[in-house]
Protein backbone atom coordinates (compact mmCIF):
# COMPACT_ATOMS: atom_id res chain seq x y z
CA UNK A 1 0.00 0.00 0.00
CA UNK A 2 1.41 3.39 -0.91
CA UNK A 3 1.45 5.93 1.84
CA UNK A 4 1.00 9.44 0.55
CA UNK A 5 2.45 12.12 2.69
CA UNK A 6 1.42 15.70 2.59
CA UNK A 7 4.60 17.24 1.21
CA UNK A 8 3.26 20.66 2.07
CA UNK A 9 1.67 20.52 5.50
CA UNK A 10 -0.19 23.77 4.86
CA UNK A 11 -2.37 22.38 2.10
CA UNK A 12 -4.49 19.39 1.18
CA UNK A 13 -6.66 18.25 -1.72
CA UNK A 14 -9.80 17.68 0.33
CA UNK A 15 -10.56 18.83 3.86
CA UNK A 16 -13.35 16.98 5.62
CA UNK A 17 -14.95 18.47 8.69
CA UNK A 18 -16.05 15.54 10.83
CA UNK A 19 -14.34 12.24 11.64
CA UNK A 20 -17.43 10.09 12.18
CA UNK A 21 -18.71 7.37 9.88
CA UNK A 22 -19.82 9.81 7.17
CA UNK A 23 -16.61 11.83 7.10
CA UNK A 24 -14.33 8.79 7.38
CA UNK A 25 -16.17 6.84 4.66
CA UNK A 26 -15.71 9.77 2.30
CA UNK A 27 -12.09 10.18 3.40
CA UNK A 28 -11.31 6.51 2.83
CA UNK A 29 -12.87 6.61 -0.63
CA UNK A 30 -10.89 9.74 -1.52
CA UNK A 31 -7.61 8.15 -0.36
CA UNK A 32 -8.40 5.11 -2.50
CA UNK A 33 -8.58 7.49 -5.46
CA UNK A 34 -5.19 8.97 -4.68
CA UNK A 35 -6.26 12.24 -3.08
CA UNK A 36 -4.53 13.94 -0.17
CA UNK A 37 -7.13 14.14 2.60
CA UNK A 38 -7.20 15.97 5.91
CA UNK A 39 -9.95 15.19 8.40
CA UNK A 40 -10.81 17.60 11.20
CA UNK A 41 -12.39 15.74 14.09
CA UNK A 42 -13.64 17.89 16.91
CA UNK A 43 -12.72 15.81 19.94
CA UNK A 44 -14.41 13.97 22.75
CA UNK A 45 -16.77 16.82 23.56
CA UNK A 46 -18.48 16.23 20.18
CA UNK A 47 -21.89 14.59 20.07
CA UNK A 48 -20.61 11.63 18.03
CA UNK A 49 -23.61 9.85 16.56
CA UNK A 50 -21.11 7.33 15.15
CA UNK A 51 -20.26 6.01 18.60
CA UNK A 52 -23.80 5.28 19.69
CA UNK A 53 -25.62 3.85 16.71
CA UNK A 54 -27.24 0.49 16.12
CA UNK A 55 -25.28 -0.99 13.24
CA UNK A 56 -27.96 -1.98 10.75
CA UNK A 57 -27.23 -2.15 7.03
CA UNK A 58 -30.91 -1.79 6.33
CA UNK A 59 -32.95 -1.56 3.14
CA UNK A 60 -36.54 -2.75 3.65
CA UNK A 61 -38.96 0.13 4.16
CA UNK A 62 -36.32 2.84 3.79
CA UNK A 63 -37.40 5.57 1.38
CA UNK A 64 -41.10 4.76 1.19
CA UNK A 65 -41.78 8.38 0.28
CA UNK A 66 -38.53 8.89 -1.67
CA UNK A 67 -37.67 6.30 -4.35
CA UNK A 68 -34.22 7.84 -4.82
CA UNK A 69 -33.44 7.13 -1.16
CA UNK A 70 -34.75 3.58 -1.49
CA UNK A 71 -32.42 3.05 -4.47
CA UNK A 72 -29.49 4.63 -2.65
CA UNK A 73 -29.94 2.39 0.41
CA UNK A 74 -30.15 -0.69 -1.76
CA UNK A 75 -27.12 0.30 -3.82
CA UNK A 76 -25.11 0.82 -0.66
CA UNK A 77 -26.10 -2.59 0.70
CA UNK A 78 -24.85 -4.09 -2.58
CA UNK A 79 -21.56 -2.21 -2.34
CA UNK A 80 -20.92 -3.12 1.31
CA UNK A 81 -19.11 -6.48 0.82
CA UNK A 82 -16.41 -4.81 -1.28
CA UNK A 83 -15.88 -2.02 1.25
CA UNK A 84 -15.75 -4.46 4.17
CA UNK A 85 -13.22 -6.62 2.31
CA UNK A 86 -11.10 -3.58 1.46
CA UNK A 87 -11.07 -2.45 5.10
CA UNK A 88 -10.16 -5.94 6.26
CA UNK A 89 -7.32 -6.06 3.75
CA UNK A 90 -6.01 -2.69 4.91
CA UNK A 91 -6.39 -3.23 8.66
CA UNK A 92 -7.05 -6.90 9.43
CA UNK A 93 -10.28 -5.84 11.16
CA UNK A 94 -13.38 -7.94 10.49
CA UNK A 95 -16.25 -5.47 10.91
CA UNK A 96 -18.72 -8.37 11.33
CA UNK A 97 -20.72 -7.52 8.21
CA UNK A 98 -23.52 -10.08 7.84
CA UNK A 99 -26.04 -9.63 5.05
CA UNK A 100 -28.20 -12.71 5.32
CA UNK A 101 -31.51 -10.85 5.50
CA UNK A 102 -33.46 -9.06 8.18
CA UNK A 103 -36.82 -9.27 9.93
CA UNK A 104 -39.06 -6.41 10.98
CA UNK A 105 -41.26 -7.67 13.80
CA UNK A 106 -44.76 -6.24 14.13
CA UNK A 107 -46.57 -6.67 17.44
CA UNK A 108 -50.03 -5.73 16.16
CA UNK A 109 -51.94 -6.96 13.10
CA UNK A 110 -52.69 -3.40 12.01
CA UNK A 111 -49.01 -2.53 11.96
CA UNK A 112 -48.18 -5.67 10.01
CA UNK A 113 -50.86 -4.95 7.42
CA UNK A 114 -49.73 -1.34 7.00
CA UNK A 115 -46.13 -2.41 6.66
CA UNK A 116 -47.00 -5.07 4.09
CA UNK A 117 -48.89 -2.45 2.06
CA UNK A 118 -45.97 -0.03 2.27
CA UNK A 119 -43.47 -2.65 1.09
CA UNK A 120 -45.81 -3.67 -1.74
CA UNK A 121 -45.93 -0.04 -2.90
CA UNK A 122 -42.15 0.16 -2.75
CA UNK A 123 -41.86 -3.06 -4.72
CA UNK A 124 -44.13 -1.60 -7.39
CA UNK A 125 -42.07 1.60 -7.46
CA UNK A 126 -38.93 -0.47 -7.92
CA UNK A 127 -40.45 -2.21 -10.94
CA UNK A 128 -40.94 -5.44 -9.02
CA UNK A 129 -37.30 -5.79 -8.02
CA UNK A 130 -37.68 -5.40 -4.26
CA UNK A 131 -37.72 -8.78 -2.55
CA UNK A 132 -39.70 -9.17 0.68
CA UNK A 133 -42.11 -11.57 2.33
CA UNK A 134 -44.87 -11.07 4.87
CA UNK A 135 -44.69 -13.73 7.58
CA UNK A 136 -47.33 -14.82 10.05
CA UNK A 137 -46.22 -15.25 13.65
CA UNK A 138 -45.77 -18.99 13.03
CA UNK A 139 -43.82 -18.42 9.83
CA UNK A 140 -41.63 -15.86 11.56
CA UNK A 141 -40.94 -18.32 14.38
CA UNK A 142 -40.06 -21.02 11.87
CA UNK A 143 -37.39 -18.68 10.51
CA UNK A 144 -36.30 -17.34 13.91
CA UNK A 145 -37.16 -19.83 16.69
CA UNK A 146 -36.24 -17.36 19.45
CA UNK A 147 -39.32 -15.23 18.60
CA UNK A 148 -42.25 -15.46 20.98
CA UNK A 149 -45.90 -16.19 20.28
CA UNK A 150 -47.24 -12.76 21.26
CA UNK A 151 -46.38 -11.06 17.96
CA UNK A 152 -48.52 -10.39 14.90
CA UNK A 153 -45.85 -11.41 12.43
CA UNK A 154 -42.92 -9.96 10.57
CA UNK A 155 -41.73 -8.72 7.24
CA UNK A 156 -38.62 -10.37 5.88
CA UNK A 157 -36.19 -9.12 3.30
CA UNK A 158 -33.00 -10.75 2.04
CA UNK A 159 -31.62 -7.24 1.34
CA UNK A 160 -30.97 -6.41 5.00
CA UNK A 161 -28.01 -7.00 7.26
CA UNK A 162 -25.87 -5.55 10.04
CA UNK A 163 -22.32 -4.89 11.14
CA UNK A 164 -20.41 -3.75 14.21
CA UNK A 165 -20.39 0.07 13.97
CA UNK A 166 -17.56 0.55 16.48
CA UNK A 167 -15.29 -1.86 14.64
CA UNK A 168 -16.24 -0.07 11.42
CA UNK A 169 -15.28 3.34 12.81
CA UNK A 170 -12.03 1.91 14.14
CA UNK A 171 -11.24 0.20 10.81
CA UNK A 172 -11.93 3.40 8.86
CA UNK A 173 -9.59 5.39 11.10
CA UNK A 174 -6.84 2.77 10.95
CA UNK A 175 -7.12 2.42 7.17
CA UNK A 176 -7.13 6.21 6.84
CA UNK A 177 -3.89 6.49 8.79
CA UNK A 178 -2.29 3.58 6.94
CA UNK A 179 -3.05 5.18 3.59
CA UNK A 180 -1.47 8.47 4.60
CA UNK A 181 -4.53 10.49 5.55
CA UNK A 182 -4.03 13.26 8.07
CA UNK A 183 -6.26 13.53 11.13
CA UNK A 184 -6.38 16.74 13.13
CA UNK A 185 -8.41 16.32 16.27
CA UNK A 186 -9.05 17.95 19.59
CA UNK A 187 -9.12 21.38 17.98
CA UNK A 188 -12.51 22.57 16.74
CA UNK A 189 -12.61 24.37 13.41
CA UNK A 190 -13.15 28.04 14.17
CA UNK A 191 -13.79 29.47 10.73
CA UNK A 192 -13.85 28.38 7.10
CA UNK A 193 -13.01 31.08 4.59
CA UNK A 194 -13.41 30.65 0.82
CA UNK A 195 -10.23 32.00 -0.80
CA UNK A 196 -10.34 34.25 -3.84
CA UNK A 197 -8.97 32.22 -6.71
CA UNK A 198 -10.28 28.97 -5.31
CA UNK A 199 -10.14 26.67 -2.38
CA UNK A 200 -10.79 27.20 1.29
CA UNK A 201 -8.84 28.28 4.33
CA UNK A 202 -9.66 26.24 7.41
CA UNK A 203 -8.82 28.24 10.51
CA UNK A 204 -7.94 26.53 13.79
CA UNK A 205 -6.91 28.32 16.96
CA UNK A 206 -3.19 28.01 16.19
CA UNK A 207 -2.91 27.18 12.52
CA UNK A 208 -4.47 27.52 9.09
CA UNK A 209 -4.73 25.01 6.29
CA UNK A 210 -5.69 25.47 2.63
CA UNK A 211 -7.87 22.88 0.95
CA UNK A 212 -8.83 22.67 -2.72
CA UNK A 213 -12.18 21.14 -1.79
CA UNK A 214 -14.05 21.09 1.49
CA UNK A 215 -16.73 18.73 2.75
CA UNK A 216 -18.93 19.36 5.76
CA UNK A 217 -19.59 15.98 7.36
CA UNK A 218 -19.94 17.21 10.92
CA UNK A 219 -23.34 15.70 11.72
CA UNK A 220 -25.30 18.08 13.91
CA UNK A 221 -22.40 20.54 13.64
CA UNK A 222 -23.23 21.07 9.95
CA UNK A 223 -26.16 23.28 10.86
CA UNK A 224 -23.90 26.08 12.10
CA UNK A 225 -21.06 25.52 9.62
CA UNK A 226 -23.11 25.35 6.40
CA UNK A 227 -24.13 29.04 6.17
CA UNK A 228 -20.43 30.07 6.15
CA UNK A 229 -20.20 28.37 2.76
CA UNK A 230 -23.53 29.35 1.26
CA UNK A 231 -25.00 25.98 2.19
CA UNK A 232 -28.06 24.96 4.18
CA UNK A 233 -28.19 22.02 6.59
CA UNK A 234 -31.32 22.17 8.74
CA UNK A 235 -30.50 19.11 10.87
CA UNK A 236 -31.94 18.46 14.31
CA UNK A 237 -31.08 15.88 16.98
CA UNK A 238 -33.32 12.90 17.63
CA UNK A 239 -32.35 10.70 20.55
CA UNK A 240 -32.27 6.95 20.47
CA UNK A 241 -31.56 4.92 23.59
CA UNK A 242 -29.76 1.61 23.25
CA UNK A 243 -29.47 -1.26 25.72
CA UNK A 244 -26.82 -3.99 25.71
CA UNK A 245 -27.13 -7.43 27.29
CA UNK A 246 -24.51 -9.77 28.65
CA UNK A 247 -22.78 -11.92 26.04
CA UNK A 248 -24.76 -14.95 24.93
CA UNK A 249 -24.11 -17.82 22.56
CA UNK A 250 -25.69 -17.04 19.19
CA UNK A 251 -29.46 -17.58 19.46
CA UNK A 252 -30.80 -14.79 17.21
CA UNK A 253 -30.03 -15.35 13.53
CA UNK A 254 -31.36 -12.19 11.90
CA UNK A 255 -31.21 -8.50 12.78
CA UNK A 256 -34.47 -6.60 13.23
CA UNK A 257 -35.23 -2.91 13.48
CA UNK A 258 -35.35 -3.23 17.29
CA UNK A 259 -33.10 -6.11 18.33
CA UNK A 260 -29.92 -7.65 16.99
CA UNK A 261 -27.29 -9.99 18.38
CA UNK A 262 -23.78 -8.76 17.73
CA UNK A 263 -20.90 -10.84 16.45
CA UNK A 264 -19.44 -10.97 19.95
CA UNK A 265 -22.62 -12.20 21.58
CA UNK A 266 -24.24 -9.17 23.20
CA UNK A 267 -27.81 -8.36 22.22
CA UNK A 268 -28.47 -4.75 21.31
CA UNK A 269 -31.99 -3.40 21.96
CA UNK A 270 -33.15 -0.04 20.76
CA UNK A 271 -35.12 2.16 18.44
CA UNK A 272 -36.57 4.81 20.70
CA UNK A 273 -37.16 8.21 19.14
CA UNK A 274 -37.23 11.32 21.31
CA UNK A 275 -36.93 15.03 20.67
CA UNK A 276 -34.91 16.17 23.68
CA UNK A 277 -32.39 18.59 22.21
CA UNK A 278 -28.73 17.80 22.75
CA UNK A 279 -29.30 15.51 25.75
CA UNK A 280 -27.47 12.17 25.29
CA UNK A 281 -28.71 10.72 28.57
CA UNK A 282 -30.89 7.72 29.29
CA UNK A 283 -34.21 7.50 31.13
CA UNK A 284 -35.69 4.65 33.14
CA UNK A 285 -38.98 5.12 31.31
CA UNK A 286 -37.54 4.58 27.81
CA UNK A 287 -35.23 1.78 28.96
CA UNK A 288 -38.28 0.05 30.44
CA UNK A 289 -40.26 0.40 27.22
CA UNK A 290 -37.41 -0.84 25.04
CA UNK A 291 -36.79 -3.83 27.30
CA UNK A 292 -40.50 -4.73 27.56
CA UNK A 293 -40.94 -4.64 23.79
CA UNK A 294 -37.80 -6.73 23.24
CA UNK A 295 -39.02 -9.35 25.74
CA UNK A 296 -42.36 -9.54 23.97
CA UNK A 297 -40.49 -10.21 20.72
CA UNK A 298 -37.84 -12.56 22.22
CA UNK A 299 -39.23 -13.94 25.51
CA UNK A 300 -35.92 -15.54 26.53
CA UNK A 301 -34.51 -12.04 27.01
CA UNK A 302 -36.54 -11.79 30.21
CA UNK A 303 -33.87 -13.90 31.92
CA UNK A 304 -30.93 -12.00 30.46
CA UNK A 305 -29.00 -9.25 32.21
CA UNK A 306 -28.55 -5.77 30.81
CA UNK A 307 -25.04 -4.50 31.28
CA UNK A 308 -25.05 -1.08 29.61
CA UNK A 309 -27.32 1.61 28.19
CA UNK A 310 -26.69 4.87 26.40
CA UNK A 311 -28.38 7.64 24.52
CA UNK A 312 -27.14 8.93 21.16
CA UNK A 313 -28.40 11.63 18.85
CA UNK A 314 -29.50 10.89 15.31
CA UNK A 315 -28.79 13.60 12.77
CA UNK A 316 -32.21 14.23 11.26
CA UNK A 317 -33.27 16.44 8.38
CA UNK A 318 -36.94 17.53 8.35
CA UNK A 319 -37.88 14.64 6.00
CA UNK A 320 -35.30 12.17 7.32
CA UNK A 321 -33.45 11.89 4.02
CA UNK A 322 -29.82 12.89 3.38
CA UNK A 323 -28.45 16.19 2.15
CA UNK A 324 -25.82 15.94 -0.59
CA UNK A 325 -25.13 19.34 -2.05
CA UNK A 326 -22.39 21.46 -3.57
CA UNK A 327 -22.40 25.15 -2.77
CA UNK A 328 -23.57 27.29 -5.72
CA UNK A 329 -21.93 30.32 -4.12
CA UNK A 330 -18.58 28.62 -3.38
CA UNK A 331 -18.05 25.67 -5.76
CA UNK A 332 -15.83 23.05 -4.18
CA UNK A 333 -17.66 23.22 -0.85
CA UNK A 334 -20.09 20.44 -0.07
CA UNK A 335 -22.40 19.29 2.67
CA UNK A 336 -22.88 15.55 3.20
CA UNK A 337 -25.20 14.60 6.03
CA UNK A 338 -27.59 11.78 6.85
CA UNK A 339 -28.76 9.66 9.77
CA UNK A 340 -27.73 6.34 8.18
CA UNK A 341 -23.97 6.55 8.31
CA UNK A 342 -23.71 2.75 8.49
CA UNK A 343 -26.13 1.73 5.73
CA UNK A 344 -24.97 4.47 3.37
CA UNK A 345 -21.26 4.05 4.20
CA UNK A 346 -20.49 2.11 1.04
CA UNK A 347 -22.24 4.71 -1.15
CA UNK A 348 -20.31 7.42 0.64
CA UNK A 349 -16.95 5.67 0.08
CA UNK A 350 -17.82 4.95 -3.58
CA UNK A 351 -20.29 6.90 -5.74
CA UNK A 352 -20.33 9.96 -3.44
CA UNK A 353 -16.56 10.23 -3.76
CA UNK A 354 -16.88 10.07 -7.56
CA UNK A 355 -19.42 12.87 -7.32
CA UNK A 356 -17.05 14.97 -5.18
CA UNK A 357 -14.34 14.43 -7.79
CA UNK A 358 -16.63 15.56 -10.61
CA UNK A 359 -16.88 12.13 -12.22
CA UNK A 360 -19.98 10.78 -13.90
CA UNK A 361 -22.08 8.62 -11.60
CA UNK A 362 -25.11 6.58 -12.55
CA UNK A 363 -27.28 7.69 -9.65
CA UNK A 364 -29.08 11.00 -9.38
CA UNK A 365 -28.40 13.08 -6.29
CA UNK A 366 -30.76 15.93 -7.21
CA UNK A 367 -33.40 14.69 -4.79
CA UNK A 368 -30.95 15.25 -1.93
CA UNK A 369 -30.40 18.95 -2.43
CA UNK A 370 -31.21 21.05 0.62
CA UNK A 371 -33.20 23.35 -1.71
CA UNK A 372 -36.16 21.11 -0.82
CA UNK A 373 -36.23 22.76 2.62
CA UNK A 374 -37.33 26.35 3.16
CA UNK A 375 -34.57 28.71 4.27
Amino acid at each position, binding site marked *: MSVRNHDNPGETDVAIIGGGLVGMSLAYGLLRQGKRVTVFDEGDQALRASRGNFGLVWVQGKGDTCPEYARLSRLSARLWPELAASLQQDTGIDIELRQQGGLYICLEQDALRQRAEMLARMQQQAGGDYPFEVLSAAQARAKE*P*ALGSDIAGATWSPMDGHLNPLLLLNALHQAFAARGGRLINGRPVQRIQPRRGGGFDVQLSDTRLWANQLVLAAGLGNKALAPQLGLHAPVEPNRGQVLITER*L*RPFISYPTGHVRQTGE*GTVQLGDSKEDVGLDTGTTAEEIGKIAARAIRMYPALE*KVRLIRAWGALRVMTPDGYPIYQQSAQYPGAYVVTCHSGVTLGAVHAGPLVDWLLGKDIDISLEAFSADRFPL
Partner: protein
Amino acid sequence: MQTDSPFNRLATATADTVTIEIDGRPFNAREGDSVAAALLAAGCIPSRTTPVSGSPRAPYCMMGVCFECLVEVDGLANVQGCMVQVAEGMKVRRQSGAREMTVGDFHEAV
Protein backbone atom coordinates in the same frame (compact mmCIF):
# COMPACT_ATOMS: atom_id res chain seq x y z
CA MET B 1 -12.08 -32.99 47.88
CA GLN B 2 -9.22 -30.65 48.73
CA THR B 3 -7.16 -30.76 45.57
CA ASP B 4 -3.93 -29.02 44.63
CA SER B 5 -5.31 -25.53 45.23
CA PRO B 6 -2.72 -22.87 45.89
CA PHE B 7 -5.16 -21.42 48.44
CA ASN B 8 -5.00 -22.77 51.99
CA ARG B 9 -7.44 -22.50 54.86
CA LEU B 10 -6.27 -20.73 58.01
CA ALA B 11 -5.76 -23.32 60.72
CA THR B 12 -7.68 -21.14 63.18
CA ALA B 13 -10.79 -20.91 61.01
CA THR B 14 -13.62 -23.06 62.24
CA ALA B 15 -16.90 -23.30 60.46
CA ASP B 16 -19.46 -25.93 59.63
CA THR B 17 -19.09 -27.85 56.41
CA VAL B 18 -21.45 -27.14 53.53
CA THR B 19 -21.45 -29.64 50.69
CA ILE B 20 -21.88 -28.24 47.22
CA GLU B 21 -21.42 -29.71 43.75
CA ILE B 22 -18.81 -28.28 41.39
CA ASP B 23 -19.15 -29.62 37.85
CA GLY B 24 -21.06 -32.58 39.25
CA ARG B 25 -18.50 -33.53 41.93
CA PRO B 26 -19.12 -32.96 45.65
CA PHE B 27 -16.96 -30.45 47.49
CA ASN B 28 -16.94 -29.61 51.18
CA ALA B 29 -17.01 -25.85 51.41
CA ARG B 30 -17.34 -23.97 54.69
CA GLU B 31 -20.34 -22.12 55.90
CA GLY B 32 -19.95 -18.46 55.00
CA ASP B 33 -17.72 -19.16 51.98
CA SER B 34 -18.54 -17.30 48.83
CA VAL B 35 -18.84 -19.49 45.75
CA ALA B 36 -15.66 -17.85 44.47
CA ALA B 37 -13.78 -18.78 47.67
CA ALA B 38 -15.03 -22.36 47.36
CA LEU B 39 -13.84 -22.50 43.75
CA LEU B 40 -10.39 -21.33 44.79
CA ALA B 41 -10.24 -23.73 47.75
CA ALA B 42 -11.25 -26.55 45.43
CA GLY B 43 -8.50 -25.63 42.97
CA CYS B 44 -11.01 -25.04 40.19
CA ILE B 45 -8.76 -22.73 38.19
CA PRO B 46 -9.47 -21.48 35.61
CA SER B 47 -13.07 -21.08 36.68
CA ARG B 48 -14.24 -19.94 33.25
CA THR B 49 -13.11 -18.93 29.77
CA THR B 50 -14.07 -15.59 28.20
CA PRO B 51 -16.78 -15.31 25.51
CA VAL B 52 -14.76 -13.64 22.75
CA SER B 53 -11.15 -14.80 22.98
CA GLY B 54 -11.61 -17.91 25.13
CA SER B 55 -8.95 -16.75 27.56
CA PRO B 56 -8.85 -18.44 31.01
CA ARG B 57 -10.10 -16.58 34.10
CA ALA B 58 -10.37 -17.11 37.87
CA PRO B 59 -11.81 -15.21 40.85
CA TYR B 60 -9.75 -12.08 41.38
CA CYS B 61 -11.09 -9.10 43.32
CA MET B 62 -13.44 -11.14 45.57
CA MET B 63 -15.59 -8.06 46.18
CA GLY B 64 -17.98 -7.75 43.26
CA VAL B 65 -16.01 -5.42 41.06
CA CYS B 66 -14.00 -7.30 38.45
CA PHE B 67 -16.55 -9.87 37.19
CA GLU B 68 -13.77 -12.41 36.59
CA CYS B 69 -15.48 -15.06 38.79
CA LEU B 70 -18.64 -15.39 36.66
CA VAL B 71 -19.99 -18.91 37.14
CA GLU B 72 -23.19 -20.89 36.77
CA VAL B 73 -25.05 -21.31 40.09
CA ASP B 74 -28.09 -23.59 40.26
CA GLY B 75 -28.65 -23.26 36.52
CA LEU B 76 -28.27 -19.49 36.33
CA ALA B 77 -25.24 -18.42 34.30
CA ASN B 78 -22.98 -15.37 34.72
CA VAL B 79 -23.46 -15.14 38.49
CA GLN B 80 -20.71 -13.28 40.33
CA GLY B 81 -19.34 -16.12 42.44
CA CYS B 82 -17.84 -13.77 45.01
CA MET B 83 -21.24 -12.22 45.80
CA VAL B 84 -23.10 -15.47 46.56
CA GLN B 85 -22.65 -17.63 49.66
CA VAL B 86 -22.52 -21.40 49.36
CA ALA B 87 -25.60 -23.36 50.44
CA GLU B 88 -26.08 -27.07 51.06
CA GLY B 89 -26.68 -28.90 47.77
CA MET B 90 -25.86 -25.88 45.59
CA LYS B 91 -24.86 -26.85 42.06
CA VAL B 92 -22.00 -24.83 40.62
CA ARG B 93 -20.75 -25.21 37.07
CA ARG B 94 -17.77 -23.57 35.47
CA GLN B 95 -18.53 -21.65 32.28
CA SER B 96 -16.87 -22.05 28.94
CA GLY B 97 -17.32 -19.05 26.66
CA ALA B 98 -20.56 -17.10 26.42
CA ARG B 99 -23.71 -18.03 28.26
CA GLU B 100 -25.89 -20.44 26.38
CA MET B 101 -29.63 -19.86 26.09
CA THR B 102 -30.99 -23.28 26.91
CA VAL B 103 -34.28 -24.80 25.84
CA GLY B 104 -35.37 -24.27 29.45
CA ASP B 105 -34.81 -20.53 29.15
CA PHE B 106 -37.12 -20.37 26.14
CA HIS B 107 -39.85 -22.58 27.57
CA GLU B 108 -39.92 -21.05 31.03
CA ALA B 109 -39.91 -17.54 29.67
CA VAL B 110 -42.66 -18.25 27.14
